[in-house]
């Protein structure tokens, strides 16, 4: 490496570690080659396997009644769970980001707790509340309410697993934005709901959308927690990921991968949404000159 004795500070970008042409080529090449194997190949494999016997077989696999029911149940679950966790996320972010109170950090840690807990633990924990031998089991049985091994159990487990998604997107952004605009709105005589609707939420709308998209993707794809509480009853309590497992164990690879393509598309759309929102944020940061 030929190093100039004392280059001018404003001169061409100076060499930093790993900037040598050979180091660059080796590191970039190695990382890209591994990325093709680790990150791209699984995506390609899903679609290749699903279309192994052509589009006709693919569509026929998706049209199977149990699979159609699994898609329906997954959509219903998402329709119930995502709005609830959007509401919770807004309430939690509003509490944590706009007010200062003792135990605020503890509350934030509690909100994020489900991220650190294996979905299997979540499923088992729910069983010990609502199962026949759980805390509320005798009460539920006496009143003939079925939660475990039924759709409400699937929804509850999904609520647990995805509770932090919206709040985690909103809290850092709302903390960075501070409370000045809300305080100005208060002095102008606006009430809490009005401030939330007209000031706070418009300021965080992209983060809110992205949090909701993440929450939705995870609800649709949740496997561990749901497989414990659902009881895997064909055509009754099978969501899409459970249906994938069932078809795979039945040696129906086309069927399993066909359902997998749908969930993969949801994942890819969520990733594209992330890229778009990041670009909008970057453009906004450039125009306002601040990190808003």
């Amino acid at each position: 490496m030929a190093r100039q004795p004392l280059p001018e500070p404003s001169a061409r970008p100076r060499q930093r570690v790993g900037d040598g042409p050979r180091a660059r080529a080796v590191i970039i090449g190695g990382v890209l080659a591994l990325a093709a194997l680790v990150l791209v190949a699984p995506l390609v494999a899903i679609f290749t396997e699903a279309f192994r016997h052509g589009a006709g077989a693919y569509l026929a696999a998706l049209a199977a009644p149990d699979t159609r029911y699994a898609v329906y149940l997954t959509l219903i679950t998402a329709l119930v769970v995502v709005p609830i966790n959007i509401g919770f996320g807004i309430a939690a972010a509003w509490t944590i980001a706009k007010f200062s109170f003792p135990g605020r950090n503890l509350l934030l840690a509690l909100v994020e707790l489900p991220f650190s807990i294996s979905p299997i633990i979540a499923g088992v924990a729910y069983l010990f509340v609502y199962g026949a031998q759980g805390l509320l089991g005798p009460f539920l049985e006496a009143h003939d309410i079925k939660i475990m091994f039924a759709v409400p159990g699937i929804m509850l487990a999904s609520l647990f697993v995805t509770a932090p998604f919206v709040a985690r997107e909103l809290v850092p952004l709302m903390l960075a934005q501070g409370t000045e605009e809300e305080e100005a709105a208060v002095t102008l005589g606006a009430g809490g709901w009005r401030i939330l609707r007209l000031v706070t939420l418009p300021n965080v709308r992209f983060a809110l959308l992205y949090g909701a998209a993440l929450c939705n993707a995870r609800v649709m794809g949740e496997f561990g927690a749901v497989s414990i509480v659902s009881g895997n009853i064909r055509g009754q309590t099978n969501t899409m990921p459970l249906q994938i497992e069932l078809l795979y164990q039945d040696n129906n690879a086309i069927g399993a991968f066909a359902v997998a393509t749908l969930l993969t598309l949801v994942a890819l759309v969520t990733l594209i949404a992330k890229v778009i929102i990041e670009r909008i944020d970057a453009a906004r940061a450039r125009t306002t000159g601040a990190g808003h």
Partner: protein
Amino acid sequence: MSRVIPGFPLSFGITLLYLSLIVLLPLGALVWTALDIGWERYIAIMTGARTASAFRVTFLTAFGATAFNAVYGLALAWVLVRYDFPGKRLLDALVDVPFALPTAVAGIALSALLAKNGWFGAPLAQLGISVAYTPLGIAVAMAFTSLPFVVRTVQPVLEDLAADVEEAAATLGASDARIFARVIFPAILPAFATGCALGFARSLGEFGAIIFIAGNLPLKTEVVSLLTFIRIEEYDYPAAAAIAATLLGIAFALLLTINMLQLWQQRRMGTAD
């Protein structure tokens, strides 16, 4: 921060009530059920051959997966921060694929790739390496699902690293390797350790991606999360409670470690500014 903004009692109340019902009640019930077992029975369950083997297999494979991600995740973060090349934005987006893809989907995809007749499995079998139905398969599944952690924790810290320290070291005649080891790596170490700990924690609890590729042989390729699931299916609730509560305790210990690592990181950032 002030209290002039209205709505605190309501939003605080909703947040606390929801967390109590959805998060704390079930976790409390799990701990309650586990405490009900009694110490002697707990020890008997945890030291049983199958449970002990599941914990050993899970920890070993999670270590392997974390070691892989420590190296590859760091290399990915480095490439994304330090170089410009065509396709860089696509690579950045691809890093999130393991987080976005449902674990069951990742599981069947990896299993298809690594099966004896799969794209990767066939050439590897020629070399005498079998991945599917071995602990190696478990480690591969764990590495896939936890790959983004190291990348996403190291990336921002690497971005904020000032060039002048490196340049000063270079003017003093230090080699690239020496600058990396003595200047750059210490600066990113807290973030790097946080990423590794997050990935390790995730690997310990992973279920969906693993069960399709692991073969799930008791005493050989059975992980803790699967054993918990099996105990539930067998209606052996005390064993399931004991194992799940132990996993929960490990998760809390790792969470505490990660929080301390983040404090270290913040202190480092504070003095660097």
